[in-house]
């Protein structure tokens, strides 16, 4: 009865959902972490470096991510909207290091949240038929093993088990006698597996080089639930049903280098190649379909990206260091496919932080990251939803490490 393709819109899990905040010192240094080894967060940044850890370290940190996005209609600017304020708290826990101080083998476990965020617009906003709110949460579990081949080269690898959930809501363009929209809510648990591999090279005390590769993780929602609120006369057209969807989280190849020109100063640089083109199409397959509720295939057409990052660490005293960094993270979303569930744009990131060692085995870390997307005038062709977007995010982070050796 009601026209098909009501759900042909969109859902995105992508660049905006990738949060490169898996270690405090690395956040503070522009996100660089593949080259220079600092602590147990190597489990994420470069498992090859874990074997450099002289003993077991426990590491925990939490970030407070407060993104804010503004939309202005184009071409006439007749309408503007802001996302509702939300705080996301990605966290990272790592335990790992060499089993014996002079051994070659290190093991570890990382529990971290590399993808997870969301966006929430007012329910009545102009883009409500594309998205009202969406959130993706994921937790990666990564048991890791690392081996020091010699003084110069060490290798490592981890197996990733990822679990998470997604939830999205949007309005349906079917109205009741009072003109009230219908609505759709889709939610489900997702999981997937992957690998995180790395090589760490330390030719001298003042140079470190790292290469890491994190494989694509296909997060599969095997049996999500789709529920609809529509006028009774249309209820049979929108049966509540289960759905299946697959969300590829992209592979990332990173190459980083760190140098220590003077003992107090460490400089790092890094590039990340991200295989976003896996996110070509987003499909939702429903167990029950009707002429109004059809399986959907939303084109995404993401392109691969290369992010570049730079950082510096200055050791003010034995127990205190300051860090700063900058990064440029281009958007994988091509023009024509910038959707309001993920109004992604090239991002410029500035960051700073400190580390402080009040007692011998304990280090307290703090960092703050400012992420500004450049203003982007964009279209989402499948929904013909056009506007200018800008996103800003401030991410304060706090954490600590404890050395058991």
């Amino acid at each position, binding site marked *: 009865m009601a026209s098909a393709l009501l759900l042909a819109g969109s859902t995105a899990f992508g660049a905006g959902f990738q949060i490169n905040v898996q270690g405090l010192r690395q956040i503070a240094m522009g996100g660089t972490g593949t080259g220079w080894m600092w602590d147990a967060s190597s489990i994420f940044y470069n498992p090859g470096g874990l074997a450099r850890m002289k003993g077991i370290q426990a590491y925990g940190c939490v970030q407070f991510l407060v993104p804010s996005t503004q939309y202005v209609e184009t071409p006439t600017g007749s309408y503007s909207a802001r996302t509702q304020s939300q705080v996301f708290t990605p966290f990272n826990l790592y335990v790992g290091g060499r089993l014996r101080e002079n051994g070659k083998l290190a093991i570890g476990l990382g529990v971290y949240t590399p993808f997870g965020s969301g966006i929430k617009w007012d329910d009545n906003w102009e883009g409500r038929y594309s998205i009202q709110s969406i959130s993706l949460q994921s937790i990666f579990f990564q048991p890791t093993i690392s081996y020091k081949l010699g003084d110069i080269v060490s290798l490592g690898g981890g197996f990733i088990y990822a679990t998470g959930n997604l939830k999205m809501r949007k309005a349906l363009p079917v109205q009741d006698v009072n003109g009230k929209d219908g609505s759709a809510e889709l939610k489900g648990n997702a999981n997937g597996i992957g690998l995180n591999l790395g090589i760490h090279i330390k030719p001298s005390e003042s140079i470190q080089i790292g290469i890491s590769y994190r494989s694509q993780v296909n997060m599969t929602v095997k049996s999500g639930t789709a529920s609809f609120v529509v006028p009774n006369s249309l209820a049979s057209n929108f049966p509540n049903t289960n759905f299946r969807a697959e969300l590829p989280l992209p592979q990332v190849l990173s190459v980083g280098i760190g140098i220590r020109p003077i003992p107090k100063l460490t400089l790092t640089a890094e590039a990340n190649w991200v295989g976003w083109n896996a996110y070509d199409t987003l499909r939702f397959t429903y167990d029950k379909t009707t002429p109004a509720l059809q399986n959907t295939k939303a084109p995404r057409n993401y392109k691969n990206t290369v992010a570049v990052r730079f950082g510096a660490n200055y050791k003010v005293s034995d127990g205190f260091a300051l860090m700063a960094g900058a990064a440029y993270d281009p958007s994988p979303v091509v023009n024509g496919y910038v959707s309001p569930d993920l109004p992604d744009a090239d991002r410029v990131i500035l960051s700073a932080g400190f580390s402080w060692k009040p007692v011998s085995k304990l280090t307290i870390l703090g960092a703050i990251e400012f992420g500004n997307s450049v203003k982007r005038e964009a279209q989402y062709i499948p929904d013909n939803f056009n506007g200018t977007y800008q996103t*800003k995010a401030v991410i304060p982070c706090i954490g600590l490490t404890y050395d058991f050796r």
Partner: protein
Amino acid sequence: MKKSLVFISGLAVLASCKPNLHSNTPTANGLNFSNYVAVGNSLTAGYADGSLYRSGQQNSYPVMLSDQFSLFGATNFKVPYMPGEYGYPSPKLVLGYATDCKGNTSLSPVPYSGVADTAGSNTNISTQGPFNNFGIPGIRAVDYLSAGYAVIASSLGAPYAARIFSDPFARPIDELKRNNPTFFTLWLGSNDVLGYATSGGEGSPIPNHPNNISSFANFRDGWDSTFAVLLRNGAKGVVMNIPDVTSIPFFTTVPANGLPLDTTSAAQLNAAYAGSGMTFHTGNNFFVIQDVSAPIGRRQIKSNELVLLTLPQDSVKCAGWGTLKPIPQKYVLTTQEIQNIVTATNAFNQHIADMAVAQKIPLVDMNAYLKTIATGIMFNGVNFNTKFVTGGAFSLDGVHLTPRGYALVANQILQAINTYYKSTIPFIDVNKYVGIRFPM
């Protein structure tokens, strides 16, 4: 002290992390909207669901436009509002449940059964005028020069001019002269073709009857005179051309091959019509229609011919219409009739385009735009098309638009104004308005 400074600077940092996009200030670029007048027919009046009612008028495209124009100063846009929501003179259509001759109940347009809040609808309110929304349902371009139009129209079931004219025997053009627009929209001429089309192309022997296509000369005289009145004080404006009515749901909903037959009925019809050249098979078949020019006075409808939405479905389902009883001609547009409509529409539109160029007034090609709706257009995640009921743009009468449909039209007009006059008037959020209302 120091702590509070840290706190304040912390807040400042957080506040600076909200994006701050500015949108440009709208500009009229010298256009004067202080007295905007909309001239047209039912589409301009906000007629919908087969009738005229208050909320339909409130959601007419001229009211939407005047809302946007009011950004540049007061417009005092006067609308001859009906007293209520019932519809006048006949009740509006709403979606409800109807049971057919076979006892099957389904969702379909039914007459509104709410309170008849029509008291006062036939009272003349011309003293409240002149009205800025001068959309008069049913009016044709040719009627503008016709003295006594209000009286004649009332006798034909369109009492709208009689409600607002100060003199029932005046020519509409003289009533229009009571307005002194600074800006106008002119969307006139659809009814010079539509009455012929919605009566199945049968025409009327009475000259100048609304069921006939207007002669080009009469159309030209009426349209040009109206245009000249609007332009007389140097007003700016836009003109719209005539949509090709054959692509609207009124003509595209009932398929020509909408006759389902089982094997037995197909065989019976083949036997009954043996030698006539008509053939039937199991499945969907082309209806049998009345055609006096056919050898046996009837024939099967051709795939490109159109069946009207008003075809009584119960007569098809239970009284054998379209099979042994041919569908009467008044429910069908034949190839020739469609050709008559297209030819007239093209001629009228060519004239409108020529006049727009001559008077340096922008033309909105509504004919082309409504054809894009036929193939489907997307606006902010909502797909609009000409499918009856579900298409969202056309109301339940299959001819007039929903509030969302009228908003799409208003945006086309705004775009034309902005382009031609180099103004930056904000567009309308189409989805702020309602499409089709589905029952609980």
